[in-house]
């Protein structure tokens, strides 16, 4: 494996405010690297530094083998970027946007490449439509298309599926995975935890700091030890109160109308939880053991008293 992004102590301050705080990580070629965090955690600021749009206050970052400070232009030639805010020309047709970026990157045989991208991203039928009139999912595909025109080694996608319907999100991730299979490194931010499962490794950003970094599986194992049960079919608020007071229960989180109950290793089993509930007059509860989700990981990281420290 070879490292295509290497970041050491990357820091960006805006006045006194530290948006990105001494972040270090590296990304391997062909990897799908997920960057997770709440709004304002510093995800976009990190990406913008790596793309050479924003100068770091401190730290070093090498992208595609070039220093982002000294060789920003070489970095730019090697990467594709899709910003969080849609940033193509809304007043131009789809094809004009692609043709423009084909020219801007001075790619070889632009006509052919534009056609390829139209086909790859299923944009053929939209090619003469005005970009501003496209639905969200199609727009995002076009954004990805423009970022891929020059066959970059790395693509940075900043919340590429924000505000897109679930079906389009699935399609989009299918594209991302196929890119990765072909050797393109994908650096993607999201706040959808279900999408993060598709990433090979995940960096969790909390208030500008990289709070955790590993594969989804390892994150769950290390940060959410013990077991998880899903409790459904009972009054959520009442049962939450009952279960939180139970010994061996680390955390109870509502997920919709259900509860995720995390117990210590060697703590209560599913029947124990059921018994506790029926003793409190809450019968009919359905309880099954589940795998922890990244959401659980995220909650554990944001509130460490309920994470591994408490276990």
């Amino acid at each position: 494996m070879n490292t295509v992004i290497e970041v050491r102590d990357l820091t960006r301050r805006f006045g006194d405010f530290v948006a990105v705080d001494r972040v270090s990580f590296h990304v391997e070629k062909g990897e799908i690297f997920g960057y997770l965090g709440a709004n304002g955690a510093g995800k976009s600021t990190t990406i913008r530094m790596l793309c050479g749009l924003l100068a770091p206050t401190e730290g070093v970052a090498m992208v595609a083998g070039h220093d982002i400070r000294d060789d920003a232009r070489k970095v730019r030639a090697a990467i594709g970027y899709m910003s969080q805010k849609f940033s193509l020309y809304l007043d131009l047709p789809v094809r004009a946007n692609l043709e423009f970026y084909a020219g801007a990157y001075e790619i070889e045989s632009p006509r052919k490449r534009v056609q390829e991208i139209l086909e790859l991203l299923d944009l053929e039928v939209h090619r003469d439509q005005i970009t501003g009139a496209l639905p969200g999912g199609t727009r995002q595909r076009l954004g990805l298309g423009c970022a891929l025109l020059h066959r970059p080694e790395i693509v940075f996608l900043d919340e590429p599926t924000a505000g897109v319907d679930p079906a389009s999100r699935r399609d989009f991730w299918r594209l991302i995975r196929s890119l990765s299979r072909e050797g393109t490194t994908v650096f993607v931010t999201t706040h959808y935890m279900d999408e993060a499962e598709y990433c090979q490794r995940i960096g969790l950003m909390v208030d500008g700091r990289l709070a955790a970094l590993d594969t989804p599986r390892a994150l769950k194992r290390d940060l959410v030890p013990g077991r998880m049960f899903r409790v459904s079919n009972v009054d959520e608020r009442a049962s939450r109160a009952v279960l939180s007071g139970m010994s061996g229960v680390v955390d109870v989180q509502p997920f919709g109308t259900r509860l995720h109950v995390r117990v210590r290793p060697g703590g209560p089993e599913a029947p124990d939880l059921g018994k506790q509930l029926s003793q409190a007059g809450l019968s009919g509860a359905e309880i099954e053991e589940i795998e922890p989700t990244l959401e659980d990981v995220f909650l554990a990281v944001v509130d460490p008293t309920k994470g591994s420290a408490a276990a």
Partner: protein
Amino acid sequence: MRRALNALIQKELRQTVRDRRMMVLLIAVPTIQIIVFGFAVDLEVDRVPTVVVDQDRSVESRRHVRRLFADGTLHLRYQTQDTQEAERLLISGQANLALIFPSGFQRDQLCGRPTQVQAVVDGSDPNRGRSAGAAVGGYFGQVGPMLRIAPPSGRVSVEPKLSFNPGLDTAKFMLPGIIGVLLLLITTIVAAMGLARERQTGTLEQLMVTPMAPTTVILGKILPFAGFGFLDLSLALTAAVVIFDMPTRGSLIAVYATAGIYLVATLSTGLFISTISRTQQQAFLGGFLFLLPAVLLSGMLTPVRAMPAWLELATWLNPVRHFIELLRANLLADAGFLERWPNLLALSLYGLFMTVLSISRYRKTLE
């Protein structure tokens, strides 16, 4: 660089052509403005209210008065013996021109002594001032030699006297000024909005992650609008020549070359303004703040020579001044390109400086 630049130009043209408001701003507005301004200037030329002070009351003086007013440029509004009265009429604005025939005019004329008619022109309205001065000067310039034939050595000379604004010329003098200001208004505003709009809509960020050099991007903003500038120049020149008989004595190639430098100067100023503004509104306001002094200190309305020395010095930094002077010299007087080299040099340096400044600020505009 060539291909990226082509892509930028093509993109800019596509966007502009699709934007109906931009097309109106770039093509219809200038055409209408040159015609409206032109007529405004042209109409004022006629019927300059005049007061005649005929202290001689001779056959000769009356003959000249009659012929002076024959072509309609001047309008005989008052006649008096009293120069004080004439001055009062000038100051109150009831007359814009006073013609004073001194007593002894006919006698001197017949004896062949040099004779003087005094023309006092109200320069506060430069167009009228110019046309009045031109009418009087033109008349005596023509009849002077004829007078000399009748009485062997008789001469009439006009001694024009201006309170201020000594630039005497015809209305055609105004047209190059109007053209210069027209080009200025359109190109500065369009360029100022150019980058500001891209920043506000987010498209600038996408441009900046491409490996395109800042120079390419700035040229990509200048060149297409310079194209529109040339189109506007052609429309304006055509209107000025066809409708207002503006002469084109110099070479048109020199006119277009000068205009090219001028357009780079105004467009790069607009771009610079947009690199220091956060929003389109700020850019618009910034453009306006530049336009106002640029027009006032251009010499279009008030001749630069009539300004205080320090202000006159400041006008050297004004591209509009140089362009208008070059254009006037070229169209009206057929001054060669090179005779006006100080203007040309100042204009070129200004354009170069602003372009370099915009290029160097381009990368900083996102932070």
